[in-house]
């Protein structure tokens, strides 16, 4: 408990709390259940991707192709749904096709990073370019409308359990599943171990390239889930709709306390990071501040957060290197 109070998650939580208090004063709408649920729903895709990115960043990697992969899966979904029957089986099929296709693309990233040893940022840059090009070519940049989707999918999109939209549930389930994997499976612990000390990991027999392939494939898997959430949310496929989202995803993970050099990062922190970004956006809308300012705020907050974090880190390193000087 004491450790938690001092943790980075705590400071993000405090910032969110302060923001909420301020916003509650500014707008009575803010603290309503509907508004808060809307915030979460609107950021579920960002959240699902950020959770996957957390694992990638813990192992010291980065994936800038997430938005492209998600778009690609969205397009595949949109195209196949035109041929799928209007039966519950379609939903099952969607949950098979989307993750599978995502894993396929993610594992290509993983194999190139792990086996060919190309830096992750370069591999995923290349993949991003390739996938974005293909998506644009196939769709011609055109929207795929919901008019072609089976009604069962539209029903699924509007479905809610305990008054909570299925899209939010997808986010919650993803978070819980990933948390479980990180905490309770061997591969999850290996991800943490590699983040902690790569060399030691190899010495104790952890297969580094296997773990790398896993994190990138899992990122792809979640991109598949995110694509389902995105298609459900917009009820259409916009091939350009997610351009630049990868940077917001990385921003959310970093705001949540993960260290870009690897080793640190928690699912809980990332969720807080996503919420922080979501609440800023929502708050600006409610405060009737021009939405254009949203990016200014986000940018400033990222800069302040990473600078503050780094100063704290340097301070803690100093404490570590202390020699017991006799008084």
């Amino acid at each position: 408990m004491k450790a938690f109070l001092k943790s980075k998650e705590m400071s993000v939580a405090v910032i969110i709390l302060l923001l909420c208090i301020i916003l509650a004063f500014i707008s009575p709408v803010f603290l309503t259940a509907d508004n808060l649920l809307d915030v979460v729903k609107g950021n579920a895709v960002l959240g699902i991707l950020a959770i996957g990115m957390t694992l990638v960043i813990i192992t010291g990697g980065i994936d800038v192709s997430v938005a492209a992969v998600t778009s690609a899966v969205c397009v595949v979904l949109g195209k196949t749904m035109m041929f799928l029957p209007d039966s519950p089986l379609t939903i099952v099929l969607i949950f098979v096709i989307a993750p599978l296709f995502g894993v396929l693309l993610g594992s290509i990233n993983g194999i190139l990073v792990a086996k060919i040893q190309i830096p992750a940022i370069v591999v995923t840059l290349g993949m991003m370019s390739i996938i974005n090009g293909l998506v644009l070519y196939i769709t011609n940049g055109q929207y795929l409308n919901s008019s072609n989707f089976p009604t069962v999918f539209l029903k699924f999109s509007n479905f809610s359990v305990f008054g909570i939209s299925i899209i939010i549930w997808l986010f919650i389930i993803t978070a819980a599943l990933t948390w479980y994997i990180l905490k309770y499976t061997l591969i999850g612990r290996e991800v943490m171990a590699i983040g902690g000390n790569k060399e030691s990991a190899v010495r104790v027999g952890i297969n580094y390239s296997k773990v790398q392939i896993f994190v990138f494939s899992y990122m792809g898997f979640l991109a598949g889930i995110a694509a389902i959430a995105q298609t459900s949310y917009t009820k259409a496929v916009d091939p350009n709709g997610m351009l630049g989202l990868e940077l917001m995803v990385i921003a959310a993970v970093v705001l949540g306390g993960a260290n870009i050099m690897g080793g640190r990062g928690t699912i809980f922190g990332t969720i807080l990071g996503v919420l922080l970004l979501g609440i800023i956006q929502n708050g600006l809308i409610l405060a009737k501040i021009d939405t254009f300012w949203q990016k200014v705020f986000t940018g400033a907050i990222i800069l302040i957060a990473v600078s503050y974090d780094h100063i704290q880190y340097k301070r803690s390193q100093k404490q570590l290197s202390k020699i017991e000087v006799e008084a």
Partner: protein
Amino acid sequence: MSEYLLQMLNISKTFPGVKALDDVKLEVKKGEVHALIGENGAGKSTLIKILAGVYQPDPGAQFFFEGKEAKIRRPIDATMRGISIIYQDLSLFPNLSVAENIYIGRDSDKHSWKKVDWALMEKTAKKALKELDFEIDVSTPVEKLSIAQQQMVEIARALAFDAKLIVMDEPTSSLSAGEVEKLYEVIFSLKKRGISIIFVSHKLKELFTVSDRFTVLRDGKYVGTYHANELTEEKLITLMVGRKILYEKNKEKAASGKTLLEVRNLAKEGNFKDISFELREGEVLGITGLVGSGRTELAQAIFGINRPYKGDIIINGQKTVIKSSEEAVKKGIAYIPESRKTQGLILRQSIINNISLPVLKKLKNKFLLINRRKEIELAEHYIQSLDVRPPLPYRAAGDLSGGNQQKVVIGKWLSTNPKILIIDEPTNGIDIGAKSEIHKLLRGLAANGMGIIVISSELPEVLAVSDRIIVMRHGRIAGELGIHEATQESIMNLALLGQKGKIREEAQL
């Protein structure tokens, strides 16, 4: 069943261009502490890495463990057979708990999705720690522990794996005297339980305290295996270096020129305190003490990269505040750091580029561009005068041997024409022949009027080069000795106990 727990026979290992091991043998009995010794580059760590499964030996090697032929292809194979390696820099995960660090590596990677049993993990960890009589909360993250505690965690990991053989690579290098004692106790208790230990160390006294038998390597070749009672320290050194070499104590008389550097009441929280000394022209001042006594931190403060500090630094009679390494160079201070490969040199760059780096600003022509011709001449001058081999200025610094690399670093700093040269562990990882060459060089520089501070843990070295010796202990100056009164014993006495006089029995390790 043979009397040996481990037999490694006909072990050779060839790397591109070098034969690191040539027909080496290592035989360890059950329940013995076996010292593996040799100079840097003798092949100890290569042999350990073969034992650990990190490297594969050349064909023809024979490997027996518990009397049976064993194949170790990967690190996990060694661990599973009960061979645990404790590396000098430890193999721990700072972000994971003690329990997990002890348990990790247990499952083969085929079971990626296996559920982690936290309860079993903690139970195993607690049991192993109990066997060591070491109490600690197993849920603490390892990053919160001291180095000595981390080492215990690592030994506990070995026990949890039912290790029959534990290799300890320089285990005492960053421990305090008290912690070393505790480690010896642990080693003796492991031995009593029939666990064999391979102990790799440079500290001869320490080896005689714990080891039953010694295997000596030299230049990648097997020299022999000896019982402790067949050996003396002197004989061991002769076996290691192949000839009898002991440095001679410095007998030259120090020129007492004017004071170049004066340090008054220098203090930095958590690093050092109450440091006052002066350095004169033509003098070599030795600073020694245990690792972690604040020597390096002090040197880096004077060089402007360990800031901020309290107190005064006075250069040529003028109070000076040095805010960066750039300013230190301008003030005529040179600092040769401890680690050549990471701090001293830029390995991928050429010898020329390394040597000219601190004086680039002085090599500008009237168009503000670097005068390449002058730069090459400068490098060639130092390659020649310091006898760097091979004398190829365009070669990457990383291609040179340790001794030649150190000469390049020295050349680089001589090019700045320093008044004050601070050199940290000048011969770390350099073979004996090159060592005395560097000692001679330092004496020569002092004779020409330079003021030199030599920081070293190697007492014979300190005695061989210094005119005066300052001993540090826990961030303070424990005492100062003139070269005539200084002996290894008197220095150790100050370093360990902080007092002059006869060394006490319990510290005689």
